[in-house]
């Protein structure tokens, strides 16, 4: 880790109106929780279903995409990354420092609102914890994966979107085998294991899910550092 890189990345990712935009997204989750509680004062299980659909299928992939690509892509785009690469800092340290910021943003602006929303919906302490841990796992994996993607291709945002929207929702609902390769299902598997029975359903075994999550986090971070070491700077078309 390098404090200066962490500070500069945080400034770039959260500085100015970007913090307000990401904060608005986080606030939206809380607004939804309040609205659901007011408009449908039913059982907490329904609230948990709403939260699961919104947070795990849409909010976390998109949030992970924004912070994962936002951590380094703008610098590569405008070429200022050369100043960073010219410093005597290991490329792995650079990637790790940037990931600390991305995961920190996920915790503050995605996991925390999810936990608060679960509290507002009155789902019970165990479910709140389950949603928190699941959201953290999913958010961290998305952040690492999408940061790695920005180092592999200039079209990381588009490829990430195709994965998050088409692979996870469309292909996953038609081809059951595809769910083994779905980050959303890995996270739901952890959530399912912590939450009381019947709150969420997961299609991937807990052991496989945990193994894959750790593998993506470790290998993704290491490979991202490798890619940064071999980065070629090209102009945009």
């Amino acid at each position, binding site marked *: 880790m390098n404090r200066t890189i962490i500070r500069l990345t945080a400034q770039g990712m959260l500085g100015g109106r970007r913090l307000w935009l990401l904060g608005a997204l986080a606030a939206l989750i809380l607004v939804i929780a309040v609205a659901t509680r007011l*408009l449908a004062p039913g059982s907490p299980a329904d609230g948990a*279903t709403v939260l699961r659909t919104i947070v795990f299928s849409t909010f976390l992939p998109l949030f992970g995409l924004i912070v994962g690509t936002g951590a380094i892509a703008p610098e590569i785009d405008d070429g200022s990354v050369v100043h960073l690469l010219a410093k005597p800092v290991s490329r792995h340290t650079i990637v790790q420092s940037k990931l600390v910021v991305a995961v920190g943003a996920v915790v503050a602006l995605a996991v925390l609102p999810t936990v608060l929303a679960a509290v507002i919906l009155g789902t019970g302490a165990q479910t709140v914890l389950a949603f928190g841990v699941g959201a953290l796992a999913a958010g961290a994996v998305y952040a690492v994966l999408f940061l790695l993607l920005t180092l592999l291709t200039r079209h990381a945002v588009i490829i990430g979107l195709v994965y998050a929207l088409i692979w996870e929702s469309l292909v996953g609902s038609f081809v059951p085998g595809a769910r083994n390769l779905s980050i959303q299902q890995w996270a739901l598997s952890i959530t399912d294991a912590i939450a009381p029975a019947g709150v969420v359903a997961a299609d991937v075994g807990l052991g496989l899910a945990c193994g894959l999550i750790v593998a993506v986090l470790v290998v993704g971070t290491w490979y991202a550092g490798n890619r940064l070491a071999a980065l070629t700077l090209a102009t945009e078309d």
Partner: protein
Amino acid sequence: MSSPDSAPAGVIHNIGYRGYDGERLSRRAITLALYTHGLRGAFGLGRAARSKVIPMGMAVVMLLPAVVLAVVAVVGEQMGQLSGPVVPYTRYAMILQAALAIFVAVAAPQSVSLDLRFHSLPLYLARPLARADYVRAKLTALTTAVFLLLAAPLLVMYLGSLAAGFDAASETADVAQALLGALLYAAVLSSVSLVIASLTSRRGFGIAAIVTVLVLSYSIVSSMQGVIAFDADDPTTAGWVGLFSPMTLVDGVQVWAFGVTTSTPAGPPNDLAGAAFLLTSLAVVALGYVVLNRRYRKVKV
């Protein structure tokens, strides 16, 4: 080799610049050229091969299910299993909305963000082209592109239904309604996306922001509608919630105006709500146009 003192101090060389005495096209022709350029660009035509991958890929994703449905209609009719299309035309956009969202999210920043980033607007405005013409050309081009993307699969399904020998009159009426709906989908999605794209010169950020707005709003609205309509047993409130996302908004207009089945847990509950859905979608388009004009009034030349 000439000595320095014998060289002339300053000379204007005639290097053969010539004046233009051909036809000068009108402002309208320039707008039309910009429109054609925008429409082609949305599908990646006239751009590098890798820029064609996403638009063309999404067009294929949009078309494939329609082809399958057309074949199913013909085969199913022959086996005596079907007497009408499996999927109503008006629901097609909603079912494939992920592909639609990605297409429009890639096309809108492509259309305006790069002009902002590379400051090309002064070059456009050096011609007899007004800022409003630029906005109109970009907006209509994107609307046309999204409409074509939606209309093509509907026509494929329609041809399949005709080939299967379903009732031609009712199929024609149904597909005409769906095409009107497609036009409204195209106009609403395009104006929302272009407004977002015009606010940033970073293409990646524009793409992410547009998809977030389109997909997250749909996800929120539909799951809230589900819990309100079924668990709290309040379809009226659930219907009104549909106002808050572009996709459910236009779906609500179709449900009210054409009496088709809704793709969401609850459609507009009554005529008042239906009219509100229609007015809101028209207002979104009009507001998008006004906001874009205001935005481009501020872009420096």
